[in-house]
């Protein structure tokens, strides 16, 4: 009996020790910047099709892209106990494109066959939990052989008094610069650089507004509205357009485009095992393109720590006013394109993902919080099809 009592007391003390918190004086400690999480996302993408824009709407669209990004998120509490979050992100893509190689078809494999894009960004936000407010901003850069972009954004959000609803506004600006690399037969030969013939710029301004609302313990929804304006050189200089009279020109599109997408999301947790993630978007722009997007993803929780998520996405768009296929543009038009990405089509994207988030961490490493693997197959009604494999590893501090 004495032995049992001692064992029970021992267990009790052990439990107390396990659940008690160490007392630290530590307003100073709390305010130090610490790593909240690190996210590594990698993807492999492969596509093929028969309507390359570089060759005027015919030819191989074979392309592969290996994409990697690393994000480090740091947090600290300031003197007023507001949460400050710093995020540093760096992305690196390497791609090969069969159609880019046709900018100069005389070469066996040109410099444009492969390229690397690097895109670092940094952002900051400050959240006041008591007031239910958050504001922040960020800067980004993207650079590849013929394209550079500098972006800046500001955002702010405010929760309702009962914290069931939240309004968010985000303004973004991108200032882009594109080197005008024309198809070989359309170069004027006056530039000292054998490939580049000057540059074009395009600026994009967007305002994204959203309202998210908790409906009950299982359902939350959000409404999204973006207003986007683009100005400048909005064509791509290496896209050929063949006319009915046999002549060839470089794609020419208006120097202004206004886009208005409006979206709706609803996520519902059914029972203890199923999460339904739904999304719908309607889109319209000033080039005459309108589109519908609808998607459904169902996460099935095989256990609290493992889930499987099949998904399906449907997309349909009408063509822009300036699109016509290979050799069907009549001469005399002001604007013209044979880029099938801007033609009328429907697409289906489906696949599945698995997510592991074991309580002791991935491979028993406590800080490796979760691992997600995802595969998707994309098929478009005008011959393009692609496959993508992605993985996301999260380290949590």
């Amino acid at each position, binding site marked *: 009996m004495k032995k049992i009592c001692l064992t029970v007391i021992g267990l009790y003390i052990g439990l107390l020790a396990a659940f008690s918190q160490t007392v630290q004086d530590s307003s100073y400690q709390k305010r130090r910047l610490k790593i909240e999480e690190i996210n590594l996302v990698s993807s492999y993408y492969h596509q093929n099709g028969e309507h390359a824009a570089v060759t005027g709407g015919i030819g191989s669209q074979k392309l592969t892209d290996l994409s990697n990004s690393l994000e480090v998120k740091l947090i600290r509490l300031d003197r007023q106990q507001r949460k400050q979050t710093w995020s540093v992100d760096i992305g690196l893509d390497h791609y090969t494109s069969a159609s880019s190689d046709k900018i100069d078809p005389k070469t066996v494999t040109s410099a444009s066959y492969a390229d690397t894009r690097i895109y670092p960004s940094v952002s900051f936000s400050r959240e006041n939990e008591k007031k239910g407010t958050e504001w922040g901003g960020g800067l980004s850069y993207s650079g590849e052989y013929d394209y550079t972009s500098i972006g800046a954004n500001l955002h702010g959000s405010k929760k309702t008094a009962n914290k069931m609803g939240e309004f968010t506004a985000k303004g973004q600006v991108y200032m882009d610069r594109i080197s005008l690399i024309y198809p070989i037969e359309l170069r004027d030969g006056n530039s000292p650089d054998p490939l580049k013939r000057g540059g074009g710029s395009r600026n994009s301004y*967007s305002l994204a507004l959203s309202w998210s609302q908790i409906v009950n313990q299982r359902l939350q929804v959000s409404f999204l509205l973006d207003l986007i304006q683009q100005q400048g050189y909005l064509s*791509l200089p290496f896209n050929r357009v063949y006319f009915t009279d046999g002549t060839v020109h470089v794609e020419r599109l208006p120097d202004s485009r206004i886009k208005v997408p409006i979206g709706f999301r609803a996520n519902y947790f059914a029972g203890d095992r199923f999460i339904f993630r739904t999304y719908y978007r309607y889109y319209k722009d000033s080039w005459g393109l309108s589109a519908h997007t609808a998607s459904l993803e169902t996460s099935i929780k095989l256990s609290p720590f493992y889930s499987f998520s099949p998904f399906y996405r449907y997309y349909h*768009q009408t063509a822009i006013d300036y699109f016509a296929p290979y050799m069907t543009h009549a001469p005399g038009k002001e604007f013209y394109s044979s880029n099938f990405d801007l033609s009328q089509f429907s697409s289906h994207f489906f696949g599945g993902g698995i997510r592991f988030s074991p309580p002791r961490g991935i491979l028993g490493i406590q800080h490796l919080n979760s691992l997600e693997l995802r595969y998707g197959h994309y098929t478009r009604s005008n011959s393009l099809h692609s496959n993508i494999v992605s993985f996301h590893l999260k380290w949590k501090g």
Partner: protein
Amino acid sequence: MVGILLLTGLNSCQVVKEFQKNRLNDAEMVLGNRKVEKTELSFQSYREGASGANAGKSGGGCGCN
């Protein structure tokens, strides 16, 4: 009509206390794109004419139309 339905729907919202949000706070309940979808959104913005209203890029920043 849609507005009336939305207003009626949102009017019926319940107040959910912090301790009742265990399902809403699930990582897969997030009202936005998950990190693993990052490249998917990128290729869709290249291969499709429409973009935006998905908390991703809505134009600019890439060599696409």
